[in-house]
């Protein structure tokens, strides 16, 4: 019988996703001349994970450090160019230009030229901008400060009307000033011994500036200020700065020196404003004409610069791509062991077995393309390290694999829970989220994401959108199962629908007044699919649904947990550990099923027979007084002796899973290593000497610590025994959330506005609960998750990472 089962299991078709790819440890010996090409071909292929053989060397002691440095320098230049392009607002092309191969050296010189050109242009523009700013500031100072000067004078001649015009009509100042008669302006300031300095200063510093001036001159000054009409562009940061024009009146040489120093300290530019209106006008005119000259020059410069930048922008993605690849290739080459005498590079790494021939092909191609006389040697080696875990996923399974990996990466060739999660995860979600209305909404969302898949995958999305997009197929499955479960629950935004025929129940009389209190009468066969819509709103709706969902949760939980334990059997079989089957899998199976499996049986029997037995009572008294008569709670004949047998089995199972395994392990260990303490040390040292390049590590056989193993086993057993209870209880969350969901949607249905809000929240909480059920209740039965991921050297992955 057992053999037949085994044969049957062996004949089962292979499942790709169930076990991670078979990996092999390989050594590659590249001749120096073809190494670079070979590695870049391998990068294109993307299925070899190189091991760093120079771990003890710091980055600048490695062989190809100069090339890496050059690449870093080039990517710095590229960043500089990109920044300039972004600043100038030139668009980058979305798609990569034609992949014509460019030489790295050529690219380097090109980049250097471009950088040089841009820097020169920038400094030119900066200089121009600087002068332009000075002129602009001068213009503003002339306009505003002139205003202060005249306002002071007009006071002396009491020309109120013109004063107002002068002070407040800023824009038309030059014109208004010309209206004033020339003779009306004697050089009053010089006569009174009053000097003035006018200039322009940042608005943010103005208050401090004024305060400082006040203190320095001990208050003997007059400070006039006005906001400048135009903002000034800072030539370095290219930000617009608001400035104010000021004029300080003061007396004395000492004060002048101080004020000038303060101006310097605050970065205030001072301009001398002639007091004579004619000169002033003349100057203004001059300044204006020069300003327009400068504007033209600046514009021309800017146009030229933009042209250069847009021509660079066309090439930029290609260059960036190239440099990134080169850098990755050199980084990989740095991981190889450089053998000076043999003129070759030795690399070690992991690759999947199925890729071996293709890798060899790529290597041949590399040898051929680089005209090397010596081929690249590629051979398989043994390794004591456990291989990396590599699952070949597609876009549907990838998201599920991610969910599993988030908990822990599978051990090499360990059974992969993702296989089952593809269905169970969305299903358990749907059990909590069963509503075909909500399901359709979710489905539409998922379909939109899938329909725009090709568009969205190239775009940069926000972190939340990225999450949704990554899980679009999870979302799709979740919505489909929600619709299915929603149909079973007969929920559509908490509105009952008669889809599959007529209800089995009807009112007792035509007025239907006591439908909610006394109840209904069954008039025809049961409703064909799912919950009868008539239940909704009736007196017994909640008790009925609760009982249904609670029992269903336990059944689902038991199924999933049993699946988990069975997977542990497959794992043990796969790794050839009969110990685990006999002393772990068997007692675990017996323990769980003799208690909660029995409960499931009772549930099914009760559903089928429609019996009135109280299952709580049965379960509790099975432990408290197993020998008692069940009386009205008896569901089938022979239940009492069965219970006693099951209880005894459960009790036996506990020491069964606790004691034998560690003792047998100790016995095996003693047998295996008896008298072999001397031999091993010698051979392993020989091994290392013969192959110094190899990354094979000295293999110490682990010391067997009995107490540690025993304590570990004890913890494991206790966890399982307690877990059997708590995990089963944990599955009741399916019921609880499902209940909450339907109650919430009833409330939201009544207050429609709240719909959207509660909807989002509930998806997340149902998702998290489904996640927990998988990670904890399901995976702790068999999943170790202490492996490490296969991270091949691949250009394709490189791009993803950088973006």
């Amino acid at each position, binding site marked *: 019988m057992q053999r037949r089962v085994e044969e049957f299991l062996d004949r089962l078709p292979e499942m790709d996703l169930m076990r991670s790819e078979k990996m092999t440890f390989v050594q590659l010996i590249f001749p120096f001349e073809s190494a670079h090409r070979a590695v870049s071909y391998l990068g294109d292929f993307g299925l070899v994970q190189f091991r760093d053989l120079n771990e003890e060397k710091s980055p*600048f002691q490695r062989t190809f450090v100069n090339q890496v440095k050059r690449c870093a320098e080039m990517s710095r230049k590229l*960043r500089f160019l990109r920044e300039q392009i972004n600043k100038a607002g030139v668009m980058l092309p979305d798609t990569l230009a034609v992949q014509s191969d460019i030489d790295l050296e050529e690219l380097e010189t090109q980049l250097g030229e471009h950088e040089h050109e841009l820097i020169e242009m920038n400094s030119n523009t900066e200089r121009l901008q600087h002068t332009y700013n000075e002129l602009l500031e001068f213009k503003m100072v002339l306009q505003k400060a002139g205003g202060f000067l005249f306002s002071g004078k007009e006071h002396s001649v009491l020309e109120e009307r013109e004063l107002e015009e002068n002070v407040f009509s800023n824009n038309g100042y030059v014109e208004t000033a010309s209206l004033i008669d020339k003779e009306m302006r004697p050089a009053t300031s010089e006569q009174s011994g009053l000097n003035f300095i006018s200039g322009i200063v940042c608005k943010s510093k103005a208050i401090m500036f004024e*305060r*400082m001036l006040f203190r320095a001159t001990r208050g003997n000054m007059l400070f006039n200020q006005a906001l400048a009409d135009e903002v000034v562009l800072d030539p370095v940061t290219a930000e617009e700065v608001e400035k104010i024009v000021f004029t300080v009146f003061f007396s004395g040489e000492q004060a002048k020196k101080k004020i000038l*120093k303060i101006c310097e300290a605050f970065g205030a530019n001072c301009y001398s404003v002639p007091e004579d209106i004619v000169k002033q006008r003349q100057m203004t005119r001059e300044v204006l004409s020069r300003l327009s000259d400068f504007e033209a020059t600046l514009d021309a410069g800017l146009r030229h610069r933009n042209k250069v930048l847009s021509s660079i922008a066309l090439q930029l993605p290609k260059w960036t791509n190239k440099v990134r690849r080169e850098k990755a290739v050199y980084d990989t080459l740095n991981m190889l062991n450089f053998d000076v005498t043999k003129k070759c590079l030795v690399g070690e790494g992991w690759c999947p077995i199925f890729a071996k021939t293709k890798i060899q092909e790529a290597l041949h191609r590399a040898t051929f393309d680089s005209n090397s006389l010596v081929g690249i040697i590629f051979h398989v080696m043994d390794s004591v390290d456990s291989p990396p875990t590599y699952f070949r996923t597609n876009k549907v399974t990838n998201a599920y694999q991610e969910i599993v990996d988030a908990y822990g990466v599978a051990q090499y060739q360990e059974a992969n829970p993702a296989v089952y999660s593809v269905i169970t995860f969305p299903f358990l979600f749907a059990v909590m989220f069963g509503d075909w209305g909500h399901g359709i909404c979710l489905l539409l969302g998922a379909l939109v994401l899938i329909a725009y898949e090709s568009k969205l995958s190239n775009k940069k999305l926000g972190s939340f959108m990225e999450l949704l997009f990554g899980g679009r197929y999870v979302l799709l499955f979740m919505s489909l199962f929600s619709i299915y479960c929603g149909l079973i629950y007969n929920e559509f935004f908490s509105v009952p629908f008669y889809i599959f025929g007529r209800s089995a129940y009807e009112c007792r009389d035509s007025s239907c007044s006591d439908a909610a209190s006394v109840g209904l009468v069954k008039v025809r066969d049961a409703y064909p699919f799912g919950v009868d819509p008539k239940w909704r709103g009736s007196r017994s709706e909640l008790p009925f649904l609760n009982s249904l969902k609670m029992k269903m949760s336990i059944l689902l939980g038991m199924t999933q947990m049993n699946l988990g334990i069975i997977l542990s059997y497959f794992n043990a079989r796969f790794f050839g550990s009969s110990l685990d089957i006999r002393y772990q899998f068997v007692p675990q199976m017996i323990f769980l099923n003799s208690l909660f499996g029995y409960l499931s049986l009772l549930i099914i029997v009760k559903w089928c027979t429609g019996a009135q037995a109280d299952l709580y009572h049965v379960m509790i008294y099975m432990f408290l007084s197993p020998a008692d008569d069940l009386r009205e709670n008896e569901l089938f004949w022979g239940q009492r002796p069965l219970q006693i047998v099951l209880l005894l089995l459960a009790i036996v199972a506990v020491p069964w899973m606790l004691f034998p395994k560690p003792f047998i392990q100790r016995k095996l260990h003693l047998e295996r290593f008896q008298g072999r303490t001397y031999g091993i040390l010698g051979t392993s040292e020989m091994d290392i000497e013969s192959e110094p390049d190899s990354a094979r590590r000295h293999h110490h056989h682990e010391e067997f610590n009995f107490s540690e193993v025993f304590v570990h086993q004890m913890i494991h057993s206790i966890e399982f025994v307690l877990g059997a209870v708590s995990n089963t209880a944990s599955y009741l969350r399916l019921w609880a959330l499902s209940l909450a969901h339907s109650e919430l949607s009833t409330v939201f249905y009544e207050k429609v506005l709240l719909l959207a809000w509660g909807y989002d929240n509930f998806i997340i909480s149902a998702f998290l609960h489904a996640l927990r059920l998988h990670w904890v209740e399901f995976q702790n039965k068999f999943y170790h998750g202490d492996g490490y991921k296969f991270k091949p050297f691949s250009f394709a992955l490189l791009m993803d990472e950088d973006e």
Partner: protein
Amino acid sequence: MYGFEALTFNIHGGYLEAIVRGHRATLLTASDYNNLCQCETLDDIKMHLSATEYGPYLQNEPSPLHTTTIVEKCTLKLVDEYKHMLCQATEPLSTFLEYITYGHMIDNVVLIVTGTLHERDVQELLEKCHPLGMFDSIASLAVAQNMSELYRLVLVDTPLAPYFSQCITSEDLDDMNIEIMRNTLYKAYLEDFYRFCQKLGGATAEIMSDLLSFEADRRAVNITINSIGTELTRDDRRKLYSNFGLLYPYGHEELAVCEDIDQVRGAMEKYPPYQSLFSKLSYGESQLLDKAFYEEEVKRLCLAFEQQFHYAVFFAYMRLREQEIRNLMWISECVAQNQKSRVSKDLLASSSKNGAN
């Protein structure tokens, strides 16, 4: 509130303490220093640092690097971190963080004033200032001719104003005056900071009083050694010592009358914590004293991280980072000047030896 900080500390300080401990975990380790010491060029240093937290700050520097660029960028990182923490901080932590920068402020003031005295260009001086000690009107320090002007014009707006009350004279500024001003200011600053920490209470007060006392004692010893053979009278010297610390008051009396380094040593060896410092030095030697003090400081700063729920970690982190930047400067200078043999000589790798755990 002593002993109950744990109850409420995390309400306001938890996030920032986590941040600062995270920053501290990124201090360079002994193996980093080992690698850095083997660098041949400044580019190698840049390359090594690009694998550390300094990476983003250095990656856009064009290749012929200078020591000043490296130091500038590393300092910029510290300043960015400081500013981030200051923005997130609430009272009284924000005040505490501000206190940390006052020392730099004093140094900057002294730097500018001395510079203008020797008629240096203000812009050039400003570039040399520590960015943590900058304040708005710092450039106008150049206007001042004497102490009272300095105070009246500029410093009255800065947090340093109260410290100045003790050294306002109408004397013209000269090197000696400025040095005395620096020490007076520093004394007042340390005392104020000390009082502030005492007011905070709890573990902050306990640890900070230890750190600040050490700082005060170190300054006292330095003042003594530097003033031997100058015109400074004993009373004046006595006035520059901070009024707290392990040496206060009896040690100060002894230090005030010291005439040579061995007398200082005699005075200091009466205090057990300092005895071990001096026991490493041979007689008559004062060169290595600075280093010994720095080492001791780093040790104490690292210990500050052993307790939780207090502000001293911020102080300790800032100090450790500054020491690290000094180390980097030293390494880069040695590499730039081809003095590789001297690289590890004055290196305080301990600045983060404990930072790695």
